[in-house]
């Protein structure tokens, strides 16, 4: 008995000590204000590639505004939105944070983002300096919930050595055509680029599709409701639109037969052995597969330029514009913005920072680092120059963005993450052959539109 109670006491005192230690650990500092009117603003972003550029902006900003310090916090994409929402719920959100189209609507709906329109009017910000349409993505009912910071478009990326070995002239990739029936010259290219274990390509009658060594085309089916890295661009080149209106539409159109046609074309590539079957696909990302030589061509975004052309790439890659469909060449264009939290205690200082982020002063710094294309057109030119000076050809992304009618915006609506899951599941079940494309998309569309009722 005595021994047991002693052990119990020891345990309890241990528990108490641990509790005290925990309390001590809790009392960290979270004060933004310092003496003498100095202010520290919290700024959040998710892309670790961009942190250095924005730190450079923050330093430049500090020089111009000595009493405002910017504290940058970067967290990975998967955690970013969870952390942000939790912090908003706890009333301790960052003063300024980076937003993306499919996530920011919920913050607008819940009144977490400050309307910037009065500031924009007062400071006479020139909204025409930005890449066409980007500034409007972040408006709703006359209010403005962010200023654009950058943009991205999509392009083909291909393994240059592999295509050369297959006798493909890289210049021929500049004017590929595509249609959902026979895939156009793009499918011819894919067939030629697909090579089996015996070295026979997809056009050879002796091609063995059960032993493919390098797939001609790597599709992306984990692409949510947008198909930014694949089907969305093809569907758009058939005239497909996601929504009744964008942004802030309430009626999705995933039951459009043209979308089902695109999915069926993808399925035909798999059936011919030109693309890996979804149930035999890799769990790894397409850039990992491209680097392993498992794929010859895939579609990627301009944010991946440094992954494919940078020092970490194991093979030589190059970019080419997307193939042109019946309605022309259509690339998804997407932009990020910076927003101010309604709960910030330093609204004016936060506005100064956002204004700086959206100004040539900062965007030229970002462009000069050649990481992303800044929203300001002139700054984008700087990024192009910076890439050129490093010997990187990224013209395809710029040309698509500049072509009239060459781009389309990704949907911005409420319920973004739910729509994403429903549509992705439907597309995967169609590709896996669990249902036919048309009825899978019809069912998903009903489910999606039900969310808006």
């Amino acid at each position, binding site marked *: 008995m005595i021994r047991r109670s002693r052990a119990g006491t020891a345990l*309890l005192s241990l*528990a108490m000590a641990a509790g005290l230690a925990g309390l001590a650990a809790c009392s960290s500092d979270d004060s933004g204000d310092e003496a003498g009117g100095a202010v520290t603003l919290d700024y959040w972003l998710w892309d670790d590639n961009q942190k250095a550029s924005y730190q450079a902006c923050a330093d430049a900003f500090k020089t111009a505004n000595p009493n405002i310090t910017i504290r940058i916090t970067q967290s990975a994409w998967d955690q970013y939105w969870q952390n942000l929402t939790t912090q908003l719920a706890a009333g301790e959100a960052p003063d300024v944070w980076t937003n993306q189209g499919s996530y920011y609507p*919920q913050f607008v709906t*819940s009144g977490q983002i400050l309307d910037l329109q009065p500031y924009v009017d007062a400071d006479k910000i020139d909204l025409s300096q930005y890449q066409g349409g980007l500034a409007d993505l972040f408006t709703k009912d006359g209010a403005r919930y962010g200023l654009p910071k950058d943009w991205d478009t999509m392009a083909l990326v291909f393994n240059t050595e592999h295509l050369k070995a297959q006798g493909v002239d890289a210049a021929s990739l500049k004017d590929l055509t595509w249609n959902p029936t026979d895939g156009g010259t793009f499918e011819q290219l894919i067939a030629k680029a697909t090579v089996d274990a015996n070295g026979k390509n997809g056009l050879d009658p002796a091609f063995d599709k059960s032993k493919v060594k390098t797939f001609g085309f790597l599709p992306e089916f984990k692409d949510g409701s947008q198909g930014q890295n694949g089907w969305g661009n093809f569907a758009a080149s058939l005239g497909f639109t996601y929504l009744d209106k964008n942004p802030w539409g309430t009626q999705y159109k995933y039951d459009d037969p043209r979308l089902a046609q695109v999915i069926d074309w993808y399925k035909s590539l798999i059936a011919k052995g030109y693309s890996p*079957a979804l149930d035999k*696909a890799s769990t790894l990302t397409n850039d990992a597969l491209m680097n392993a030589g498992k794929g010859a061509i895939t579609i990627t975004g301009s944010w991946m330029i440094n992954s494919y052309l940078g020092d970490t790439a194991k093979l030589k890659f190059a970019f080419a514009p997307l193939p042109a469909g019946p309605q022309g060449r259509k690339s998804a264009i997407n932009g990020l913005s910076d927003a101010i939290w309604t709960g910030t205690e330093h609204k004016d200082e936060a506005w100064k920072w956002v204004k700086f982020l959206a100004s040539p002063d900062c965007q030229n710094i970002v462009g000069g680092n050649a990481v992303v294309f800044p929203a300001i057109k002139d700054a984008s030119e700087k990024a192009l120059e910076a890439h050129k000076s490093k010997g990187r050809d990224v013209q395809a992304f710029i040309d698509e963005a500049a072509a009239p009618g060459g781009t389309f915006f990704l949907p911005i609506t409420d319920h973004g993450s739910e729509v994403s899951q429903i549509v992705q599941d439907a597309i*995967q079940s169609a590709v896996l052959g669990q249902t036919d494309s048309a009825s899978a998309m019809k069912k998903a569309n009903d489910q999606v539109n039900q969310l808006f009722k």
Partner: protein
Amino acid sequence: MKTTKRRDDRRAAWWFLLPVLVGFAVFYGYPAIRGLWYSVTDYTMLNQPSFVGADNYTELAQDGQFWHSLLVTVWYVVLNIGSQTLLALGVASLMHRLTRSTVLRAALLLPWLVPNVTVGLLWMWLLDTNLGFVNNLLTSLGVGPVGFFTDAAWAMPTVAAINTWAYTGYTALLLYAGMLQIPQYLYESAAIDGANEWRMFRRITLPLLRPVLALVLVVSLIGSFQIFDTIAVTTFGGPVSATRVIYYFIYEQAFRYFHMGYAAAAAICLALILGVLTAIQMRLLRASRSDLA
């Protein structure tokens, strides 16, 4: 004199219990009550929770995805508990009857000591269809690549096998400890009577191990229902919700769609199911307690 002393003891005991009770109330009691409250509200984390009565529960009852998640979870539990217990039993018997090497015992625990996320990533690379070592081996043997994580029929057995790999050693050790309690003379006399190893296992080891086996089952069943990390690392609930287990469902509702109220309701349902299962198992456990006395 004596009675007052006893009362003093009791009062002192409460003081010593206080930290634990406070800890329990703050970290378990209060969150549980909050969870119960959220489960009858509409709450997105960014609004004030508004009372909606039993709406979340009626919606859950009609949500095909919720039932699907439960079904998938049960499928996982059957696969995982089945394979894990059988394997562990085999390994424990081998350790018990064949070798008692401490090095071997330590080696068996190794997979259990590796964090689950690491285990998930490790197997994701090993089993990858295009770049994985296992599929490379299978292809060279002419069996052809298997989409372990991407084939809807294979995904759940794969996840279950990974967790079996990680936990068998630990379970085996628990069972082995139970086997050590079985008196040696039983085996000796059985051997004199000419019983072979298989017969001894069935007639001596298995019946006398029942209480330990029951305990191991209770613990691993509850753990198994809470499968999350391996899935969050490898399949993300896919392909097409083939591995969207109940925990992953709750996680998605809460932290991806921010339906906190709905997620809380699903969590309460899961807690109820686990409560019932545990009660049944505890009864079984108590019933088998007297075997070796």
